[in-house]
C-alpha cells in the first residue's frame, strides 16, 4: 500500500499479513504512524482512491478478494457484513440526526424494511450494546449523550445489519478508563454472543492484552510479530515487541523505565532491509539490506526477524521450511515465504491478507 504525497511516495504498508478467524478478536498494536489504521481502512476500502494505491496483495474475506471487487459490491458489503467503529464517536455521528434516525438509515440501506421494522432492528442493536432501547434514546441527538454512550451508539450502528467483521479503530482512546473497561467488555460480549469477529486497532498494549485472542505487532508498515496474545506478550520474539513492552510504565519506577533509541523512520524513504534495524540492539549485517520474511517461531506464532531466525538455528535469510500456503494448525495460510526483498530493488511488496474461512 502506497500513498502519493507532495513529498514523494509514502510506503505506508509493506508486507502486512493478517488472518482473522471467525469469532476472534485480533489486535493490531503499534505506535502512531506504523500503519494500523491504514490496514483497517484498506479492509473496508476507505482509503482515498487516486492517492492511495495498493501495489500488491490481497484481502480475502470468506475467500473473496475485496480489492478485486467492483465498488458497487463493496458498497453493499460495507456497513452490512464488514463495518467499522472509529476513535472519536462525536465526529463519526451526524450531529443533526437523532440516534434512531441515523441507525435506521443504515438498516434501511441494506435491508428492505419499513420504517417501523427498521426501528425495531435499531432497538435490538442498541440493546445488544447495553443501551436502554427507549424512545427517549432514539429521539436524542449525539451531543446529548456521554462519550461512552456515543461509542455504544456507534457500535450499535456497526452491528445493526448483522456484521460478521468489525474493524474497531482505537474505540476507547477518547474515553476515560472506567468507561474504557465497559466498552472492552462489550467487544468481548459481541464476540461471544453475536459471533462478531473483530480487528481491534490500538496503541495500548493493555487494551489488546485484555481483549484480543491474537495480536499483530506493527512497526513502520510491517507486521513484525503475530501470534496468540499470551505468547506474544509473555514470550515476545521480535526485538521491537520486547522493547515496546519494556517501555510500559506498569510497576516500574522512573529509573527502571526502558526506552527505544532513535525515532520511527520516514516512510517516504524507509531504511533498506528490516525497517527496525537502525534502532535494534541485535542488528546483523543482513538486517541492513535484506527484508526478513515471517517464519513460525512457535505454534501459530510468527515473527519477521533475522536475529531470531539465526538464534533458532535455521540460518539467516533462508526461508523456513513450512509449506507455502499451509499454516501450523493445518489451515491454509496466505503467506508467501518465497519472496526475498532486497535493498532498493523493485516495488514494495505488500500483502494485506485477511480471510475468514468457515462461514
Amino acid at each position, binding site marked *: 500500500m502506497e500513498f502519493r504525497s507532495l513529498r514523494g511516495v509514502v510506503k505506508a504498508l509493506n508486507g502486512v499479513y493478517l488472518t482473522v478467524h471467525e469469532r476472534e478478536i485480533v489486535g493490531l498494536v503499534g505506535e502512531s504512524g506504523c500503519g494500523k489504521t491504514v490496514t483497517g481502512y484498506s479492509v473496508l476500502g476507505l482509503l482515498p482512491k487516486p492517492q492511495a494505491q495498493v501495489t500488491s496483495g490481497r484481502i480475502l474475506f470468506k475467500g473473496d478478494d475485496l480489492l478485486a471487487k467492483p465498488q458497487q459490491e463493496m458498497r453493499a458489503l460495507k456497513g452490512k457484513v464488514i463495518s467499522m467503529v472509529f476513535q472519536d464517536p462525536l465526529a463519526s455521528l451526524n450531529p443533526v440526526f437523532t440516534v434512531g434516525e441515523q441507525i435506521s438509515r443504515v438498516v434501511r440501506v441494506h435491508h428492505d424494511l419499513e420504517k417501523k421494522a427498521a426501528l425495531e432492528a435499531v432497538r435490538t442493536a442498541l440493546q445488544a450494546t447495553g443501551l436502554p432501547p427507549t424512545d427517549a434514546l432514539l429521539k436524542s441527538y449525539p451531543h446529548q449523550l456521554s462519550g461512552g454512550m456515543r461509542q455504544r451508539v456507534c457500535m450499535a450502528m456497526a452491528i445493526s445489519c448483522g456484521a460478521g467483521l468489525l474493524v474497531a479503530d482505537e474505540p476507547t482512546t477518547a474515553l*476515560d478508563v472506567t468507561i474504557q473497561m465497559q466498552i472492552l467488555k462489550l467487544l468481548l460480549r459481541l464476540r461471544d454472543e453475536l459471533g462478531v469477529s473483530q480487528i481491534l486497532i490500538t496503541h495500548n498494549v493493555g487494551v489488546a492484552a*485484555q481483549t484480543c485472542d491474537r495480536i499483530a505487532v506493527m512497526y513502520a508498515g510491517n507486521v513484525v510479530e503475530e501470534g496468540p496474545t499470551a505468547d506474544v506478550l509473555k514470550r515476545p520474539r521480535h526485538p521491537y515487541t520486547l522493547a515496546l513492552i519494556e517501555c510500559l510504565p506498569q510497576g516500574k519506577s522512573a529509573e527502571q523505565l*526502558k526506552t527505544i533509541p532513535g525515532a520511527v523512520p520516514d516512510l517516504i524513504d524507509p531504511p533498506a532491509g528490516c525497517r527496525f534495524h537502525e534502532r535494534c540492539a541485535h542488528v546483523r549485517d543482513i538486517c541492513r539490506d535484506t527484508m526478513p520474511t515471517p517464519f513460525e517461531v512457535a505454534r501459530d506464532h510468527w515473527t519477521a526477524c533475522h536475529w531470531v531466525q539465526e538464534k533458532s538455528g535455521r540460518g539467516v535469510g533462508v526461508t523456513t521450511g513450512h509449506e507455502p500456503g499451509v499454516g501450523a494448525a493445518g489451515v491454509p495460510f496466505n503467506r508467501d515465504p518465497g519472496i526475498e526483498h532486497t535493498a532498493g530493488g523493485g516495488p514494495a511488496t505488500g500483502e494485506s491478507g485477511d480471510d475468514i474461512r468457515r462461514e
Partner: protein
Amino acid sequence: MSLLEVEDLTVHFKIRRGLTRKSIDTVHAADEVSFSLERGTTLALVGESGSGKTTVAHAILGLNKPQKGSIVFAGRDLLALSRGTQRTARRGMQVVFQDPYSSLNPRMTVHDLVAEPLRVGSEISGDALRERVVELLEMVGLGTQHLWRRPHEFSGGQCQRIAIARALALSPDLMVLDEPTSALDVSVQARILTLLHRLQIELTLSYLFIAHDLAVVESVASAVAVMYLGKIVESGPTATIFEDPRHPYTLALLASVPSPDPDRRSAGAALSGDVPSAIDPPSGCRFHPRCKFRMDVCDQEIPPLEDRDGRRIACHLPRDFDLSAEQEAARAARSTAVVEDRQRSRARPRGDETPVPKMPRRW
C-alpha cells in the same frame, strides 16, 4: 515546610446566558480541595475527565479565580497577594501542557521560544542569553542544531522537550505538568518520563503531575491525590494508595486499568454508568450513585476528608469494612506484562538518552 500547600480550594464557574449575562447555573469544578507538596517530590492529581484536576492546577497557576481557599507557595498565600506581587511570587512555578504542538507558537523558532521567559523574567541578554538557551536545550537532550527550527519540524516528543526547556528557563521550584505524556506514544512517553525524573534529581524540582494514566502515576509520583467530581476522595503516599486502596472509587479506578498481562484479565467492568454532571453534583458523597457499597448515609452527608490509616480519605464506610475482593481486583489490574523468556536479559535496547549535564543551580 512544604513548598506548596493548598487548603480548602474551591473553584466554581458560573454559566451565564442571555443579554444580561444572568448566571443560571454553577459548575462545581473543584470543592474544598486540600493537599500539600513537599520540596523535591512529585504529587500526582489523578482522576477522570471532569474531576477537576486541571482546574486545581490552573488555580495554582493563577489561570482562574478560586471562590475561596488558600494556596501557600514558598511561604506566601498567593490568593491574599495583589496581582503584581502574585506575578513575581509565581515566577517560581512553571507549566508544561498536554499538547506540545498547541503550546508552542508555530511562528517562533526554538531559540525564541526558550529565550522568551528569560527576556521577560531575567536580566540576561546577548551572548549570555544564547548560551543559556543552548544550555537549557542540552538539558532536555536537544542541541544547537535545533536552535533555528520551528515547532512543526519536530516530533511530538521533541516538542515536549522544547516545552520543558522553556519551563526550566527561569529555574522554577515547582513544575505543573498537565498530562505531559498523554499525547505521546509509549516509547516516547518512557523517554520523557526518564528525562523528567533526571531533571527532578539534578535541579531538586517539585512536580505537580496531572494524569489519568495510573501506570504512569505509579512510576513517577511519590504521593497521589485521587479526585472525583471536584473533590479529593483519597490521598496519600503512592505505595499506600496503590497497595492498599480504601476508597471505593480508587479501587474501581485501579481495577479499570487494562493490564498488559493477558493472564490477568479483569472479570467485568468495575464501574457502571457515567460521571454525573458537575453542575448539579449528587448530594452527600458525590460518588454514591455509582458506589457498590452505598449506605443510607451516603446520599445525605458529605463525608469529611480525614486522616486515617496513613492517608486522607473521604468515605463513610467503617474502617474495618472488608474490601479484600476489590483490592485483589485492583492489584490484578496493576500486574505487569511479564516477559518470561530467558532472552530478556540480553535483549535490552541500548540506552540512548544524552546524559543531562551537571549544572549550577543559579547563574
